[in-house]
C-alpha cells in the first residue's frame, strides 16, 4: 500500500506492505534509528513518537493508521549543538545511563509537559511516565529532569 507521512517536517510517500508497523517505517525505511524497540509488546515505551502531536507507542500503530499524519521522532526535536530543553535537562540531571529508554522517555515527557495545564508535580510526572520503563536509572533522576525542563519549555 501507498502511505504519505510527514516525518520531522519532511514529506514522504512510501510503498509498504499492509502489515508494516509505524516503528519499522521510521527505523527501516527512513533510517531514523533513534526510536527504539524495547519490548515490541506495547509495554515499555522505548518506541514513543508524536503522531499528530500526541505521544504514541509506534510499535503498536500500523503504517496505514499513520497515513496522512505528521510524525515527530527524537531526531526532530533538537540537534547535538542545540538540544531541546528536555534533552538538556536529561543530560544535566544524569537522567540516563545506557540511554536505551531515553528517546521514548523524552518524547513522552515533552507531550506530558505540553498537555499539562499547570505545574506538574512529582506524582503527576511519575504517573505520566507509567508507560515508559527504564532498567537502569531507578527513575529518580528522570523525574527530576522532567520537573526541571518544564520551567524552560
Amino acid at each position, binding site marked *: *500500500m501507498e502511505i504519505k507521512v510527514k516525518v520531522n517536517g519532511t514529506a514522504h510517500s512510501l510503498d509498504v*506492505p*499492509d*502489515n508494516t*508497523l509505524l516503528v519499522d517505517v521510521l527505523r527501516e525505511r527512513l533510517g531514523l534509528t533513534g526510536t527504539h524497540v524495547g519490548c*515490541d*509488546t*506495547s*509495554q515499555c*515505551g522505548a518506541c*514513543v513518537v508524536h503522531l499528530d502531536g*500526541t*505521544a*504514541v*507507542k509506534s510499535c*503498536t*500503530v*500500523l503504517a*496505514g*493508521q499513520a*497515513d496522512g499524519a505528521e510524525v515527530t521522532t527524537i531526531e526532530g526535536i533538537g540537534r547535538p549543538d542545540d538540544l531541546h530543553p528536555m534533552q538538556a535537562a536529561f543530560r544535566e540531571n544524569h537522567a540516563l545511563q545506557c540511554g536505551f529508554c531515553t528517546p521514548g522517555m523524552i518524547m*513522552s515527557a515533552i*507531550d*506530558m509537559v505540553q498537555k499539562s495545564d499547570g505545574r506538574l508535580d512529582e506524582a503527576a510526572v511519575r504517573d*505520566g511516565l*507509567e*508507560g*515508559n520503563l527504564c532498567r537502569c536509572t531507578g527513575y529518580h533522576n528522570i523525574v527530576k529532569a522532567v520537573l526541571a525542563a518544564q520551567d524552560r519549555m
Partner: protein
Amino acid sequence: MYQFNYHKPSTLTEATSRMVEAEEGAYLSGGMTLIPTLKQRLAAPSDVIDLSGLPGMSGISIDGDIVSIGAMTRHAEVAASDAIPALAELAGGIGDAHVRNRGTLGGSIANSDPAADYPAAIVALDSTVRTSIGPIAGGDFFTGLFETALREGEIVTSVDFRIPDAAAYEKFPNPASRYAVVGVMVARCGDAVCVGVTGAGPYAFRATALEEALAADFSPGAVDGVAVDSSDFNADIHASAEYRAHLVGVLTKRAVARLG
C-alpha cells in the same frame, strides 16, 4: 505478524461490506489490543478494517441527562471530560498515557476482556450500546469471556449513558499493566443502587446481593454481611477466586464511603 489487507473505509456501509467480503475480517479502532494480538500471531485475519475514517464516530455530546460517547473516542478524551466524573476517573486509570491516547471505548467493550475497566460502567450505569444494526441495552451487552451480544460484522458506533445522581469507581490494578484485578463501580439513581463488577468473573456483571443490601442501608457497613459467590470467578497468578471475591467487598465499601 501474518500478512493481511489493510482497509480504511469512509462510510459505515463500506466498512460492513468489507467485513462481509473478507475471508476473515477484523475491525481496528485504537489497535491497543488487536495489534499486540496480531504480533503474537494469536489472530490471523485476512483483512483488517480500520474504523478511524468513519464520520461521526468520535466525541462526547450531552443531551439532557444522556451523555453520548462515540465508539472511536479515545480513553484520554473521556478522562478529560467532566460529563460523568466517575467515568472520567475510570478512563484516566486505564493502562498508561500512550494506551489512553490510542485506545477507544468501542474497542474496549467489543473486546469484553474480563479485566477491562469500561465494562464495569456499562453494567453499573443505565447505558445503551448503539451499533450499525440497532441499540443493545448495556446490561445485555456482555455475554461471556471475550464475548458480547454483537452479531457477525456488527460495529459499535456509540454508547449512551444516563447521568447518575452519583457514582464512584474503585479498582485494584494489576501493578504492571493497570488492568483491573477487580474493579467496582457503584452508582445511585434515585432510590436504586447499582454495583457493576469487572475483573472478578468471566465478564462484567451486577452484584445484586450487594445492591439489595445497599438499597436498604447505603453505608460501607452494609457490605459486611453480604457473601460474594466466587464459584465462577477467575483465578490466575495474580489472584485466587476467593481473593477476588474479597476485593469485590472491599472495593464496594471504598466506593460507597466516597459517595457517603
